[in-house]
Each structure stands twice: as structure tokens, then as C-alpha cells.
């Protein structure tokens, strides 16, 4: 009979909501803001939307603090049938992404007012995107990574085109969307192949499967690696998957670019760390050379192509490619030190790059079009503090001592040298010399040339002012006192989350999958 046997009760995994709180706050806040947006006036003197978005982004940081201590003391929390792993890395990168969101909100408020684009949409999308990023940072399953990536990306595709009256913005959105969708397809196919080779999409499962089994034919698996690398490399703008970056960075609204270069990049690298350094750790000898080559190409492409740019946003786009190369150098080390260096780099770069695009937001003026190098002529005379802030960010990106950028590079190089990649370290440093030329050009234009007659002066909106001051303080402060952040990265990678040397046993739920 059909009902002879008692219907088996559907097994649903327990969900520990407290561990997922940061994601839930971001998602809930986004939905709430959408509702509130209908009630609040679109245009008002007080920045309701921005403040609400910042509060929503600030709450996960606060909720992450108890999680930080909990994961530090009790080890990682495996949530939702081990599909999500909340450990130090998740919390650390979650805070980094949320900081990026707050900085972006601060910049966006003035921008949206200036461009007559007020409204809650941008903030809602930003919060949704950040939720995707935090999901990626905590993903322990390839499917969850994909899920997070899509939540993150789709919101950013729309954000890129949020300046509805500007054709370039729409063009950027379309380019980003088409290429992004393409890369998602690569990622998905890669996941399928890895699933085919290992029988699971759970990273812990993949890790222990690869550690305990020797594949007689690993073509499928390696093809899966390659496709995953393409998909994730696209998100972090690693060459040769970088072609979209200059166009999209140039066309998108400047505050959105600040988020793309900080939040999206951070989420992308979180996934790369999880998948390659953790999941495929026993196949290091296979993927490390590939990442090595990708890192070299990324470094050189980013720095060399930046030289010929005359548009500051495009310059910064190429420089962000070159920075992705630096971070890949840390990934390539595949050691605890390397992962810590990646975390440090991401945290400091978030502030530097958000600040840089913050300056670009202001100098871009109404219409967001004044990004040519000549628009920066004599900025030191017209807006000394703004020019000084940009100077700090540029010097930090060039890796000048006593800025956070220098120490970030130092830690990455330390990791590379520690794993005996001397030549990679050297290529990285030489590429940073080439990049320095680019930054110096901007500095010279700001400080060395006189402004043309009738060049505008700038009023920096209060929000942007706060964001720039915070970024300058973080850039110089972390350059002088890196200790606390560097120690935090140690806590973040402790436990078996990222660079465990021993393979832990997969949980029932995942291996049964």
C-alpha cells in the first residue's frame, strides 16, 4: 500500500540563528529599508536612508563581537548542516565588508543628493549585496558560495547602473552584468565538475575526500579547479579576467566603485581562500603554480596598463587589479602567514580604496564626469585637505612606509618569501615601482601644476568628510600601529577554518549529501 510505511519525517538541519545574525541583520535591514522608503520622503534635509543603512551595516559589526570571542574560544560554529561555517575568518571579513558598506553610505549620501538621485534604492541594494558578501565569507559549501556570489553580484549590477540619467552608467551595468553572468556560469560549471569528481559540494567534505582518496583520473577535478578560478578571479578582477574592470569602474557611480573595489573584492577573496587554501589544500601542488602565474600576470597587467591611462578612475581601476595581484601573492603562499597577510591586505585596502574613490566622487562634480587627470590640476591649491587625503591614499597604494599599504605589502611579501617564492615577491615589488609612477603622476598633477582659470573649488559633503577622515586615520594609523589588526588576523585564521594542517572529519550531514 501506498501509506503502509509511516511517512519518513523530513530531516531539517537545526539552524543556529545567533551565528547567522550578521547576515540576517543585513537582509532584514534591507527589506525594512525598502518598506520605510515608501513612508519616508525621498528628499529630505536629514539623510534618513543613509543613516538607516549605516545603522544596519553597523549592527552586524556589533553582533559580530560576541561571535568573535565565541569562535575564538570554542572554535568554528558549523551552521545549517555545515553549509555555513562561522569562524574567525567569517567574522573578520564580515566586519571588513560592513566597514566598506558604511564608508560607501557616507560617500553615497552626498553623491546621490548632488546627482538628484535621492531615494532608498541604492542603500537597499548595498545592504543586500553586503549580505551576499558576508554569506560568501562564511560559506563552507560551493553552493552557498554561489548563492552568496549571486546575491552580491546582482545587487551590484543594478548599483552600477543606478545613475539612470548617465549613459555611461548604464553601459557599465550592462557590461558588468553580461560578463558577470558569464563568469557565474563558469563558476557553476566548475562546481558541477568538482561535485562530479568528489561527490560533494561541501568544502570540508571535499577536503577530506581529497586527502583520503587518490583519484586515478583527476581531469574532471582539475577542470573544476580551473573553472572555479576563472569564476572567482573575475570577481576579484584578476588578470586575464580583468577586462571589465576599467570600463565598469569608469562608468559606475564613484561611491559604488568604492564598494566594488572593497566589499566585492573582499568577498571574492574570502571565497578563494575557502575554496583553494582550505578545500583543495591537498592539491596545493596543482593549483599553486596556476595562482602563481595568475598573480604575476595580474601584477604586471595592473601596473603596466595603468601607466598609459589619463582618466583617474581608470588608473585606479588598473591599480586595483595590481592590488588583487598582491593579494593573490598571499593566497599563493597557502600558509597561515599568507592567509593572515591576505586578511590584513583586504582590511587596509578597504579603507585606502574607499578613500581614493571618495576623492574621485567629489572631484567628479555634478554629472560624475570630471575624472580626467587634468581635472586634478592644482587640487592642492583649490582644496588642500582633499588633496592631502588623496596624497595619503596614493602613497599608501604605492607602498610608502608609515602607511598601511606598506605593511600590507610587507606581510604579503613575508608570506611569499617564507614559502620560498622569491621571484614572485620580486615581481610584485617591481610592479609596485611601476605603479608608483602612476600614483606620482596624479600627485604631481595635484601638487605641481596650477589650476586652469575658473577651475571649480569643492565643497565636501559632511558624510564624505567623515569617510575621508576615517580612511586617512585608518591608513596612517594602521601604518604605524599594525599590531592589533595583525594579531586579529591570527585569531581569525586560528582553528581549522582556513589553513588547517590536519584534516577534520566531515559531519554526517555533508558527507551523506
Amino acid at each position, binding site marked *: 500500500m501506498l501509506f503502509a510505511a509511516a511517512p519518513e519525517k523530513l530531516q531539517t538541519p537545526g539552524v543556529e540563528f545567533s551565528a547567522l545574525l550578521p547576515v540576517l541583520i543585513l537582509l532584514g535591514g534591507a527589506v525594512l529599508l525598502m518598506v520605510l522608503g515608501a513612508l519616508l520622503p525621498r528628499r529630505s534635509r536629514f539623510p534618513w536612508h543613509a543613516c538607516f543603512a549605516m545603522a544596519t551595516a553597523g549592527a552586524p559589526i556589533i553582533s559580530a563581537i560576541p561571535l568573535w570571542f565565541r569562535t575564538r574560544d570554542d572554535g568554528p560554529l558549523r551552521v545549517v548542516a555545515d553549509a555555513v561555517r562561522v569562524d574567525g575568518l567569517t567574522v573578520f571579513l564580515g566586519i571588513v565588508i560592513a566597514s566598506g558598506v558604511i564608508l560607501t553610505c557616507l560617500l553615497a549620501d552626498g553623491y546621490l543628493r548632488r546627482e538628484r538621485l535621492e531615494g532608498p534604492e541604492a542603500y537597499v541594494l548595498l545592504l543586500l549585496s553586503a549580505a551576499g558578501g558576508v554569506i560568501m565569507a562564511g560559506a563552507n559549501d560551493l553552493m552557498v558560495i554561489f548563492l552568496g556570489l549571486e546575491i552580491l553580484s546582482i545587487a551590484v549590477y543594478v548599483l552600477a547602473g543606478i545613475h539612470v540619467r548617465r549613459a555611461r552608467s548604464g553601459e557599465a551595468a550592462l557590461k558588468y552584468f553580461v560578463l558577470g553572468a558569464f563568469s557565474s556560469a563558469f563558476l557553476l560549471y566548475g562546481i558541477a565538475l568538482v561535485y562530479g569528481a568528489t561527490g560533494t559540494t561541501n568544502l570540508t567534505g571535499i577536503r577530506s575526500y581529497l586527502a583520503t582518496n587518490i583519484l586515478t583520473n583527476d581531469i574532471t577535478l582539475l577542470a573544476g579547479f580551473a573553472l572555479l578560478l576563472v569564476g572567482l578571479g573575475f570577481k576579484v578582477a584578476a588578470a586575464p579576467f580583468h577586462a571589465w574592470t576599467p570600463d565598469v569602474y569608469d562608468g559606475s557611480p564613484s561611491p559604488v566603485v568604492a564598494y566594488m573595489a572593497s566589499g566585492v573584492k573582499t568577498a571574492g577573496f574570502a571565497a578563494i581562500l575557502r575554496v583553494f587554501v582550505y578545500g583543495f589544500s591537498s592539491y596545493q601542488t596543482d593549483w599553486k603554480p596556476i595562482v602563481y602565474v595568475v598573480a604575476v600576470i595580474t601584477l604586471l597587467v595592473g601596473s603596466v596598463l595603468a601607466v598609459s591611462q589619463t582618466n583617474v578612475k581608470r588608473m585606479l581601476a588598473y591599480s586595483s587589479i595590481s592590488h588583487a595581484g598582491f593579494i593573490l601573492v598571499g593566497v599563493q603562499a597557502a600558509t597561515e602567514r599568507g592567509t593572515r597577510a591576505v586578511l590584513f591586505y583586504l582590511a587596509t585596502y578597504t579603507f585606502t580604496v574607499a578613500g581614493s574613490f571618495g576623492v574621485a566622487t567629489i572631484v567628479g562634480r555634478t554629472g560624475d564626469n570630471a575624472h580626467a587627470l587634468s581635472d586634478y590640476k592644482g587640487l592642492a591649491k583649490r582644496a588642500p585637505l582633499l588633496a592631502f587625503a588623496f596624497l595619503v591614499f596614493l602613497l599608501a597604494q604605492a607602498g610608502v612606509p*608609515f602607511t598601511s599599504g606598506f605593511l600590507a605589502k610587507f606581510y604579503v611579501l613575508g608570506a611569499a618569501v617564507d614559502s620560498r617564492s622569491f621571484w614572485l615577491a620580486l615581481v610584485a615589488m617591481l610592479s609596485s615601482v611601476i605603479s608608483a609612477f602612476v600614483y606620482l603622476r596624479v600627485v604631481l598633477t595635484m601638487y605641481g601644476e596650477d589650476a586652469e582659470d575658473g577651475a571649480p573649488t569643492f565643497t565636501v559633503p559632511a558624510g564624505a568628510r567623515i569617510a575621508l577622515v576615517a580612511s586617512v586615520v585608518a591608513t596612517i594609523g594602521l601604518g604605524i600601529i599594525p599590531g592589533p589588526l595583525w594579531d586579529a588576523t*591570527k585569531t581569525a585564521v586560528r582553528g581549522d577554518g582556513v589553513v588547517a594542517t590536519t584534516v577534520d572529519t566531515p559531519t554526517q550531514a555533508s558527507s551523506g549529501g
Partner: protein
Amino acid sequence: MGALVLAAEAAHGAPDFPILTAVVLTPVVGSILVALISKRRPEIAKQAAVLFALATAGLSIGILALFKTHDAGFQLVDHHGWIADPTISWTLGVDGISLWLVVLTGILFPIAMLGAPPHHDDKPFYAWLLLLEAGCLGAFLSLDTFLFFLFFEIVLVPMYFLISGWGYDLRKYAATKFFLYTMFGSAFMLVGTIATAYLHAKGGPVTFDLRTLAEGQDIISKTTGRWLFLSFAIAFAVKVPLFPFHTWLPDAHTQAPTAGSVILAGVMLKLGTYGFLRFGLYLFPEAAVWAAPGMVTLGVIGIVYGAVCATMQKDLKRIIAYSSVAHLGFIALGTFSLTTQGLQGGVFQMVAHGITTGALFMLCGFIYERRHTYKLEHLNGLQKPAPILAAVFTVVMLASIGLPGLNGFVGEFVILQGSFLTRRWWTVVAVTGVILAALYLLWAYQRVFHGTPDDDNAKVGDLKLGEGLAIAPLVAIIVIMGVYPKPIFDRIQPAVDRLVRHVEDNSDYRQPKVADEGEKVVPEDERRHEGEPSEGHDAEGAHAGADQEGGN
């Protein structure tokens, strides 16, 4: 031996007042304060800056007073933890090698500020200059390889702004070239610095402490040590600059404002030669011995090439710039002769060149103030309208040529004396540099000061009181160093002896044994007899040469 020195330092106890930290931080504080001065009161900027520079100079003289003459180790060591993992500490210390460079820096900065004020934007100019001073002092005093790199690299920023902001027509090109060239060298050095520390740690705790790294010589293999040495050497060779890395120097010097040129030639180039001593010979003694023939050759090429180029120049500043290439070639020759005299002479010459060339650039600046050109074709007969200027120029120029009784002679003579022991033929070639120096400088002097002045040059005013007061201390030092160099050598010698011993302990190189000034052969050397020192030199030199070739 290192342990003994460390113990001795511990016994002395750290001084109560951290004078080394103070000397580095005073200009930093000054720089920040000057930057914060209100725009409406630009005249205070100069006064405040000079005040801080003088305070720094006072502190550097204080270091000289506290310095124990016969102590070879690092003195007045100031140690504070900074970054725990990897171990990076704020460790400053002074020995006979860095002592005089610190004093030189302390003296030269206020003089440059007083003698070569900017023509516009006083405030940022002085702020950058003070920051530059802090960077230079920090680099000379660092006993932590990481800290040294920080200071070595940070000095680029103020100098870049000084050249690009207050320089002449091609200042942007020159500033960018200067920055990128030096950064190119630093790129190698950063990788080398990190690699040295990590390889030295062998998986254990990583430290960047210079003394720990230098005393543990057998941890890093010979071949690796040589690679690491090269990574440092590229950075220093660019900074010195040694041929063929010198091409940034004439541009930077020609385009820099006068104060920038004074500091660039007087202090910043010494970062390179100092680096060779501290991070070449001390950190990689074996590799330094291995590389010595090459480095000496580059030094000698620099001497001759710099001199020949200087002869060909039509621009007063470029002549002096190329003369720097030649003079620093001498320092490289002395350093890599690996003899006590060579090193002593090298250190002495660093200071002497700093003073002399600083003064020369300042005099060039005075001439520019009057004539608004550096071109030799537009200058003539200045002796008539400006006799005192001409007299001062003569003294300084003769010091640069190496006239006995002035400081240039002492340094070059001791260097050549030392290098002759191990590198006879190189020395013979190097001596031609001295002759060429006389040629290009006297010729330049002749073209600028002799003859009948044309209309423009006849109206030139003589040295002003302020200018005279700024240049007078330099002239006095030139004469004192030339006539009575003993107090300087007394303080240099123990440190240099220790460094040479350190090289001998860690390589198969042995210094030819000869007493100072060729008086007597050292008695305990049984292979040689009194009365025939030249043969002994020869044999010893050949022996050392064979050793190095064998090392290849």
C-alpha cells in the same frame, strides 16, 4: 665577540635620556608643527623650522659628547618593541661609523635652511625638509633592518616634493626619475630584507634585529648570502650612486632647489655608502668579500667616468653633480678595499664630501641668486664684483679637489692608502680621478670667476652677511677636518676595526697587516720582515685576490 660587546653594552646600562630617539623625533615634531602654522604667518615657519633644526643639531652634538671614543660597539642603544610578530623593534644605536654621519646631518640641515631659503611656499618647504632630516637620522641610527628600510624609503617622499615643488624647469621629470630609480633599488632591498629575516629564522620566530642577524652568520648558506647581498647592493648602488646606476643623479641635482641639492649630496647619498658598510659588510661579510672586486671596479669606473663627464659639462651644478659620482666612487673603493684604512678613509670621506659638496652647492645657489643661471657661458669674471664669494668658492673647491690641509685630501689619501694594500692597480687608475678633479674644478672656476666680467656679471653683488654666516661654519669645518682629523679618526677607528675583524671572522679574507701611516710592520706577523713592507703587501694582496677568485 658579538656577545661580549652586547654584554659590555648591558653593563654600561641604557642612558636615562633616550637621546637617539629624541634626535629622530625632534624634526618630526618640528615638521608637524611647521605644517600646522597658520598660512597668514609664513615668516614664523622659517623661524620655527630653524629652531627645530638647531635643536636637532644640538642633540647630535650631544650624541658626540656622550659617545665613548674607544668603544667599538653600538652605544646609547635605545630599544623599544614595536611589532611583535615578526619581531620588529624601534632599535637605535650609534657607533663610530654612524656617529659622524649623524653629526653631519645635524649640522647641514640648519645651514641649508638658513643659506638656501625657498622663493615661495615657505611652510611646506620647511616641513618637508624637517621630515627629510628625521628620515636621514633614522636611517643612520637604525639597528633593525626593517626600521632601516622604512627610513631609507621614507626619505624619498620629502625629497620628491622638494624637487618637484621648488626645483627648476625640468623638476617634475627629475623628481619622478629620482623617486622611481631609488624605489627600483628599494624593491630588491625589501625582498632581500624580508628574505634575510625569514631565512635566518629557519621556521622559528622571525626577527629583523640587525645585530642578531649579523652575528648568526652560519645560518644562511654562502650562495643565498650572496644573492641577498646583491639585493641590498642594488638598492645602495642606486642610492650612492655607483656607475651604471647614476643617471638619476645629475638630473636630480640640477633640478633640485639649492637646499635640496645640499641635502641630497651632503646627506642622502651617504645613505647608500653607509648602507654598504652596515648592511653589506656587517650583515653579509662573506658575500661582501666575494663581491669586492666587482664593487671596487664599479667604484673606479665611477671615479674616472664621473670626472670625465664633469669635465664635459656646461652647467655649474652638473659639474658638481658629476664630481659627486667621482667622489662617491672613492668611498666605494675604500669600503670594498676591506682594509682598515680604506674603511676609515671612506667614512671620513663621507663626512668630508657632505660638507664640501654641500658648501659647493650652496655657493652655486648664491651665484644663481645673482645671475639666475647655472650656465657657464653666461658666467664670467665674477671675481671682480664678488671677491669674497670667489675666495670662499676657492677654498671649498680646493677642498673638493683634495688639496692637502683641507678635508678632501685626508679622506682620499687614506682611502688610496688602504686600497693600495689590496687593490694596487685599481688604486693607480683611481688616482687619475684626483688629477681630473683638479682639471674640471679649476677649469670651471676659471670660466666663472676669471676674466673681465661682461655687463650682466659686473653688477653682481658680493656675499651678503646672512649668506656668509651660513657658509662660514662649513668652511671652518673644511679647514679643521683637513688640519686636525685625529679626533674624527679616533672615533671611527674602533668601529671600523671591529667591522673588518667581523669580515675576517666570517670569511677566508685576511687583511694585509700593515701599521698606520706605513710606520712599522705589525710584529706578530711572522711571514713578513721589517724593512721590506712592499713585498709583503704584494704577496698578501695576491693572496687575498686568489682567495676571492677561489670564492667565485
